[in-house]
């Protein structure tokens, strides 16, 4: 297609007023190329977890958008994120997935970089460069902004991006549930060894919008629910604690993040879960009691799947995991999935969760297999000349959300759609594509930080 999209075109592609989104933004290669510039070099992206680089010299090769990056801890113990490309001729400096090293030596011409990114070795430095090369200027390209939030390492290529916490805004409540211990202790989680990586033939936005709040796709998982792989033997997750809860879809459209959740009644008490194993059941029961004590009314929030714009999604509860949808062309996504457990959980609990995570998630997971089939063929059937002329429908629940949600004294930030009776809605997806449109059209972060102008702070 020889269409060149101007920033003004994007409002037509994402039609907020009518709840429609053009298929072009999923299948068009020009738009895809623009996304790499406008979204993936400007947004905060999830890179990895602190526990993956716990010792000096530890490294984990990750990805930011299409590009390979090195997450590593230097000899002083500081964490860095570098572009994985030699400054001399671009060779991928590190082609290992993870490990420990004192130095990264480029296999092409032998430039060597310390774990803090400094260029420390240049072959023929004296004879060929006449000692005139300023090594201090040719270290590995470092992300200008990086943060370690409760163990999660995030980075952005845009030096003018807001601080991570401002980027996250009120969504922090839900991110905390992911990274805190189950008992509510701050940042008490770690990664289980082994990061799942696999290719899905679909645009990266399909999984991102699926995780942001697609309660409507329950039919996809009919087969696994019939089989029953959940931690109490039924369905695919425990749902007993949703008794009497409200279903709420929470969106932060000015930021693009969103999640689904269940709000337990005010008088709710911890209930039994993980009943396939008495030790595990008791662990979680005690954690729930401790969290209720620690968090008070916030304990009522039972967090569900969510997405942090643009491409980090997570399940904070069952199975507790993080997915990043790395773009690999308009028609391909490389999925990476990390699994989290409480660092202090007893071995029986970690082992129980490990087994549950494996049978639920990823390409071999009884639940996730069916998702990939949908994203694959939804994408494939949207590429044709005729298909592209028709927008996707995102009208579910339009006009029914509130911005001042309150229940029994608990006020929730964000735009909240009560889907208890409706059972599904698409406001979170609309919020995601609203933000997508803004990212594609905005010149810089002065324009993108819309909340500052609206005076809603962070």
């Amino acid at each position, binding site marked *: 297609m020889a269409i060149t999209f101007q920033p003004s075109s994007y409002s037509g592609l994402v039609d907020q007023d009518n709840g429609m989104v053009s298929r072009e933004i999923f299948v068009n290669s020009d738009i895809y190329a623009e996304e790499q510039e406008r979204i993936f070099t400007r947004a905060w992206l999830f890179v990895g977890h602190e526990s993956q680089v716990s010792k000096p010299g530890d490294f984990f090769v990750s990805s930011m958008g299409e590009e390979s990056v090195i997450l590593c801890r230097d000899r002083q113990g500081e964490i860095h994120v570098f572009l994985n490309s030699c400054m001399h001729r671009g060779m991928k400096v590190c*082609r*290992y*997935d*993870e*490990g420990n*090293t004192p130095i990264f030596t480029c296999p092409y011409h032998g430039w060597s970089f310390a774990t803090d990114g400094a260029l420390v070795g240049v072959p023929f430095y004296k004879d060929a460069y006449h000692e005139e090369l300023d090594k201090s200027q040719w270290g590995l390209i470092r992300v200008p902004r990086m943060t370690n939030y409760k163990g999660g390492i995030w980075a952005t290529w845009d030096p003018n991006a807001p601080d991570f916490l401002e980027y996250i805004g009120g969504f922090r409540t839900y991110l905390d549930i992911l990274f805190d211990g189950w008992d509510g202790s701050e940042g008490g989680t770690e990664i*289980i*060894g*082994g*990061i*799942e*990586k*696999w*290719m*899905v*033939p679909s645009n990266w936005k399909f999984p991102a919008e699926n995780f942001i709040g697609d309660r409507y796709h329950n039919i*996809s998982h*009919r*087969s*696994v629910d*019939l*089989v*029953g*792989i959940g931690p109490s033997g039924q369905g695919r997750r425990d749902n007993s604690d949703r008794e009497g809860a409200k279903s709420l879809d929470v969106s932060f459209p000015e930021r693009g993040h969103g999640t689904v959740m269940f709000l337990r009644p005010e008088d709710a008490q911890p209930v039994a879960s993980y009943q396939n194993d008495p030790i595990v059941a008791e662990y979680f029961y005690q954690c729930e009691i401790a969290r209720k004590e620690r968090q008070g009314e916030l304990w009522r929030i039972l967090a569900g799947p969510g997405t942090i714009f643009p491409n980090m999604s997570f399940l904070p509860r069952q199975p507790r995991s993080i997915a990043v949808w790395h773009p690999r062309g308009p028609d391909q996504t*490389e999925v990476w999935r990390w*699994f989290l457990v409480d660092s202090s959980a007893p071995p029986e609990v970690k*082992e129980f969760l*490990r*087994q549950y*995570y*494996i*049978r639920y998630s*990823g*390409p*071999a997971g*009884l639940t*996730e*297999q*069916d998702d*990939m*089939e*949908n994203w*694959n*063929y939804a994408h494939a059937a949207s590429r044709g000349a005729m298909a592209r002329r028709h927008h996707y429908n995102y009208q579910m629940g339009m006009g029914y959300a509130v911005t001042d949600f309150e229940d029994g004294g608990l006020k929730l930030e964000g735009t909240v759609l009560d889907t208890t009776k409706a059972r599904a809605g698409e406001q979170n997806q609309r919020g995601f594509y609203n933000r997508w449109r803004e990212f594609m059209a905005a010149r810089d972060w002065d324009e993108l930080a819309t909340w500052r102008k609206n005076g809603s702070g962070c």
Partner: protein
Amino acid sequence: MVVANDRLAMLLLKQDVEAFLYHEANLLDDRRYEEWLDLLTDDVRYWVPMRRNVKFGELEREFTREGQDINWFDEGKTTLTQRVRQILTGVHWAEEPLSRLSHLVTNVEITEATPSAADAEEVSLRCRFIIYRNRVATETDILVGRREDRLRRVDGGWRISQRQVFLDQNVLLAKNLTFFF
């Protein structure tokens, strides 16, 4: 003559084991999943690790660890049975319509036979596999790797008590693993 008998016993055992492996592959390719489950011992261990790029000299870290790390598969008969039941629901969209599969099993080597090849009760073997999968219209996956199996003689026939699958891929190029190796 003892040597000759031993070699003959090994030859016969290998032929027997190969016939079993081909029969097993046919059951999978013919979608006779419940009959396939019957070929697994109740205490079967089925493990498919993920595979990392690691430095020379650190190859012990190449594979994710059974019983400790996240693996593609690391399970026993209960979960394997759940996988079969899922396919048989008829609404497992990742396998509906069913994929077309061919398991090619080759390079079979018996690495251990106990107590002996002549009257083996347990056999360890190594082989290579190619799994060709084609589904819907043009979707095609080819998965290649090494398999290490342990067979046990039960009621006069072979049963699989252990299967370890070492895939020759880092990033899995297939969107899912809805089939058995």
